[in-house]
């Protein structure tokens, strides 16, 4: 019963007491009025001069890692607080920073909250609501405390060591009298200056020797320009929730991969990280109805760009994978390697892949095997890709305890 209702009851009892001169009612009215007054005063004092502070100890984590923060409740009042209910409105799944605290006068209380990040994404920690009131519950009271932090959860780190990264085919340098959009660290020769050549390509020593302006000619790097294409069309995705149990603490990263989307994103992230570690330029195309492209780069920031993009990437609409390969044809030369990560058993993109290969583009396909019930759904796709000379790696999904649904396997046309 709330305070207002109790007030109505008191009014009715008072009317009855006055009308009928009922002594017992008089006593109850006095008692209830006193209770009402005490409760109201208590309620008003329950949240006066309180504060909250939260310190986020890590604001970027991977799925499976822990988000840590320290929350401090401060009672600036001299009066103790019997209880204050701190409710946290964070959007991070399973993040329970709220708790009920008691505090003596002019004391503070702090606690550390650790939450295992189970889903990638951008999340908000906070705000808090502090709720108090009187012990009888007549006058509940709450105040919003807008202490907010953002945290980004990157995709889980999966094992991609078995997946061979494609290298570009380079059969020797070719002198070209046109400017290069991109350079490589390998200088193969010098040539005469052509208008439009950048100043930083001028070979000053050769110019001095020859007496004419000479520029350096670079060999294309056979390991550069890895493009990762992630197929996030909705039609090719599978929900794997039924295949796994609740994510347990000891079940490893696989416990958090509850759909082929997560597999694709995680594999993409892991491949990008590995390539960047090797010093290669990495570009990424997320293929879906509204595709997203990150141009190739090998700087440290590229990893963060990719990770941020992957943190929020989701399947949306449908776009044929062949379209992604075809529209990117101009971008993919023989100096680029392409990795396609998909779980779609449809094999209609095999021809597009063959077309790239025919243009000396090295193509690798990572086929995420959702593990159908006794039927190898992706076998026809793998067969066609292999026939098209695509290096294929079957990436099996896992159960929650980390066991592989099928063995991983790499297929190459011999």
């Amino acid at each position, binding site marked *: 019963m709330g305070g207002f209702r109790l007030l109505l009851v008191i009014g009715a009892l008072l009317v009855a007491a*006055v009308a*009928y001169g009922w*002594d017992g009612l008089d006593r109850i009215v006095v008692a209830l009025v006193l209770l009402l007054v005490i409760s109201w005063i208590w309620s008003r004092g329950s949240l006066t001069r309180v504060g909250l502070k939260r310190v986020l100890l890590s604001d970027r984590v991977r799925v499976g890692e822990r988000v840590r923060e320290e929350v401090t409740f401060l009672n600036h009042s001299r009066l103790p607080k019997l209880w204050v209910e701190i409710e946290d409105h964070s959007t991070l799944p399973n993040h*329970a920073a709220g708790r009920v605290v008691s505090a003596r006068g002019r004391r*503070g209380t702090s606690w550390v909250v650790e939450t295992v990040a189970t889903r990638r994404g951008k999340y908000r920690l906070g705000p808090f609501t502090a709720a108090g009131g009187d012990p009888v519950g007549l006058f509940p009271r709450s105040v919003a405390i807008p202490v907010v932090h953002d945290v980004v959860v990157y995709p889980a780190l999966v094992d991609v060591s078995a997946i061979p990264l494609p290298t570009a085919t380079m059969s020797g340098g070719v002198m070209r009298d046109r400017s290069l959009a991109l350079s490589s660290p390998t200088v193969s020769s010098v040539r005469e200056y052509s208008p439009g050549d950048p100043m930083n390509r001028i070979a000053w020593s050769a110019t001095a020797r020859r007496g004419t302006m000479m520029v350096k000619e670079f060999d294309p790097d056979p390991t550069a320009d890895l493009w990762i294409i992630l197929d996030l069309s909705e039609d090719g995705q599978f929900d794997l929730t039924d295949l796994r149990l609740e994510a347990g603490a000891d079940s490893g990263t696989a416990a958090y991969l509850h759909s082929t989307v997560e597999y694709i994103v995680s594999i993409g992230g892991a491949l990008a990280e590995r390539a960047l570690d090797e010093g290669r330029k990495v570009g990424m195309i997320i293929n879906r109805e509204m595709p997203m492209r990150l141009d190739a780069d090998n700087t440290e920031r590229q990893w963060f760009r990719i990770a941020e993009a992957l943190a929020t990437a989701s399947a949306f609409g449908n776009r044929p994978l062949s379209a992604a390969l075809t529209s990117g044809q101009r971008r993919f030369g023989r100096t680029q390697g392409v990795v396609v990560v998909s779980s779609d058993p449809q094999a209609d993109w095999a021809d597009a892949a063959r077309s790239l290969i025919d243009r000396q583009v090295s193509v690798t396909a990572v086929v995420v095997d959702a593990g159908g019930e006794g039927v190898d759904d992706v076998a026809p796709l793998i067969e066609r890709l292999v026939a098209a000379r695509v290096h294929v790696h079957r990436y099996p999904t896992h159960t929650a305890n980390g066991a592989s649904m099928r063995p991983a396997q790499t297929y190459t046309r011999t």
Partner: protein
Amino acid sequence: MMKTVLPPTSLPAAGADSRWARYRARYGEGFTVVLLMLAYVAVPGFAVQFGGWRDQYVPVGVTGLAGAVAGVLLAKSRLPDAVSQLLSVALALLLSTALLVLNAGQLGERVVDRVRPLATLIVDWYLGRQDTNEQELMLVSLLLGLLVWMFAFLSTWTLFRRGWLAAGLLFPGALALVTLRYAPTPRAWTLVLMLALAIPIATRVSFVQREQRWARRRMASPVGLGGRFVMVGTAIGLLVSLAAAQTPEAWSRLTFEPVMRQIGTAYQRASDQASEWMGDRSGDAGPDMDNAGSYTAFDDAFSIGGPLELSDRPEVFVQTTAARAPYLTAHTYDTYTGRGWASSTDQQFGDVETDEGRLSPELLFRAGQSVVLSGDVTGARVAQATTVTPLAGPSGVVFSVDTYLTSDISTVVRMSWQRLDDAVYPVTVETLNSLPPDIQRIANLLLQAELSGAPSDWGPEATSPNMQREIEAEVDALASRGILIRWDASSEGIVGSVYVTGRLPVFDDVEAVYPRNVTEASAGSTYTVRSLSSTATPDQLATASTTYPEWVVDRYLSPGDTLTERTRELAMDVVGDAVDPYTQAVRIEAYLRENITYNERVAEPPPGVDLVDYTLFDSKQGYCEHYSASMTVMMRSLGVPARTVVGYYPGEYDETRGGYVYRQLNAHAWTEVFFPGYGWISYEPTASRPLDDRDASAVQAATEAPAPTEAVPTPDVADANDVATPIAQDRPIDNPGPPQPVIAEEPERNGLPGWVVPATMAAAAVIALPALAWAGWSWRFRGMRPAEALFARTRQVGSLGGVRSGPATTPREYAHRFSEQLPGMGPPVRRIVQVYETDQYGPAGADTGSLAAAREAWRELRRSAIRLLVKARRRRGA
């Protein structure tokens, strides 16, 4: 500031799989609540048991405690509700019957021998066979045991099964209140003890409900917090119960009644003013017939006619010293309107304003204080005591028998008043007793004083300062009642005459008596009325004087404007050669009984036709109202004062109770005729009533019931007539003063004080307006899914706060804008929107838990919105 570091947040561990842990989980309220509730529920049971009622065969304290235990156990069992309730009833019957068998020694020596008589007793009761009082008491005791069990059971069951704290506390509380009110030896400390127990219970239950919410939200709480809640609750409980224990008796009435009285007065004024306006418009300047209902309402007016719909519901139980059941008088009327009867007292009294408010034509009489009757109405009468027990709710009136004298409860007596404008009353020792009672005291003081002092506004002052002070005090007291006095004196300082201006009550003309406190005349209470019943013989009445007092002439001789000539002629024909009023009355009575057929379904007279004329000449049928009106009008047409009286005709005798039961169908109207010196004498013109059933105080009373008076004190009439010096000690009305005028409010005639009506109306408005506003607000959300309705409400709040949205705004965008514009309300809005999105766009809609969370968020949003509104108004006000 020091800081305590708590361990990291962790979810409550799953309960250990021990039996103790399972019990703990089942009794989530905690064993403290169980123990406190058992104590709380046991208190009223034992209060009933030790409340002083005699012949309790079933110790209801035990049944109450057992019921409470059963409630706790069954509430936590897995039995369905209906099965639990049935089991409870069975257990209650078993236990109460067993206790009755154990304690009812008079049913048999051995316990086994008592079973069969008890079964027979119950069967007899069921079949409606007559039981002795003792047997009836056993059954009552059995039922009381069952009742207390049910109260206790429902209390604990509702709390522990449903979590309804208010209901759990209410049942025993109500039982304790009723016990405190009606127990012969009430124990106020039981209520105080219950208060001291109730608050820790409320605190603990409140904590448990919070704890459950915290668990749902995965919020850890400090260890031992529940214990601290109980300690705080106990402290508050002790404080509150201490305050309750120290509360003065009748505190609320003493504090608020003056205020309420003021409200009632204001309401009455407004009501009168409205009536006046309405009366002016309709041109109705006569007595108030607007609200005239049935005569059974015993109101200030009633309309004659309409089918009688009277039930056999017992209304009043009467024990009397008379030899036969009396007529019970409720109200008398002086004005015939052509269609009914009304009282002209209000009209006659008019508006009298004093410093304390407007006066009404009623006087307050303390318990035992007598109406001062003159010799005009007290001849050949004996005092008679009648004990009246209302049986069906507040009756609103105090019933009297014949001429009302006094009652053992405080009353409000309505009577006629005479208006005086500088009326002269010679003051001598001889005329002192014949003066109106209200001025006898001032006259006596003036007689004793030597009035040779300085002239004042009222007359020459007394030479003795003490006497002068007494005179001034009395003059002031009279002025406060609207009576202004002045006097003259001879040159020797002897008072000559007093001159009176104002209104004086006519004590001989009591119209109705109401209880001062309605509960004293409500069902279950009993009051005793002393009255004067006539023992005048026909000879005495036949030879009575026909010189009538002024108030009788003023009020009881008018046959009304609608009197037809043929009615007057009929009356003259009927009385024939009879010249004395008594014989005339007897002949008219006989004529009506013989010539008018009794019929309770009589047709209404055509519009504009006088009812008496229609009854006598056209329909020639009717019921008591028609008979009574006909006789009264016919008597008045002959110049004999008469009036119509309503009340009850004699009820049947109930041997088991030793008294008379008056039922609703006993409601009756009859005629009284005035005989100077003998007062009002009743007549029974209604053909369906036996003639010899007339009031026991009537003519036959002199011969048939001569000795009911030995237990009755000498009537105060004698005291009033024997007023002697010093009148200060023997004034007609006991110290501290005469009956006090009633401030103009509706007396408790309708069962409630006058202020209750406006207070109820105000309360109804206070409740109805928000209810209407709520209904209007909710109307626009009808037919929506719960989540949709919550989102729509949120948008309404947002629009009030200036949050704008277009047709293309998504719920999430709207929540974002809401949070930006009204930051404090952001979290609940986001929660509502989240549930709305799930419900609207998700495959399965929002689940129950999500909806509950959304509702909680809505409540939070609503509170925030109200706070914001209040703050905005304050800022605007500043």
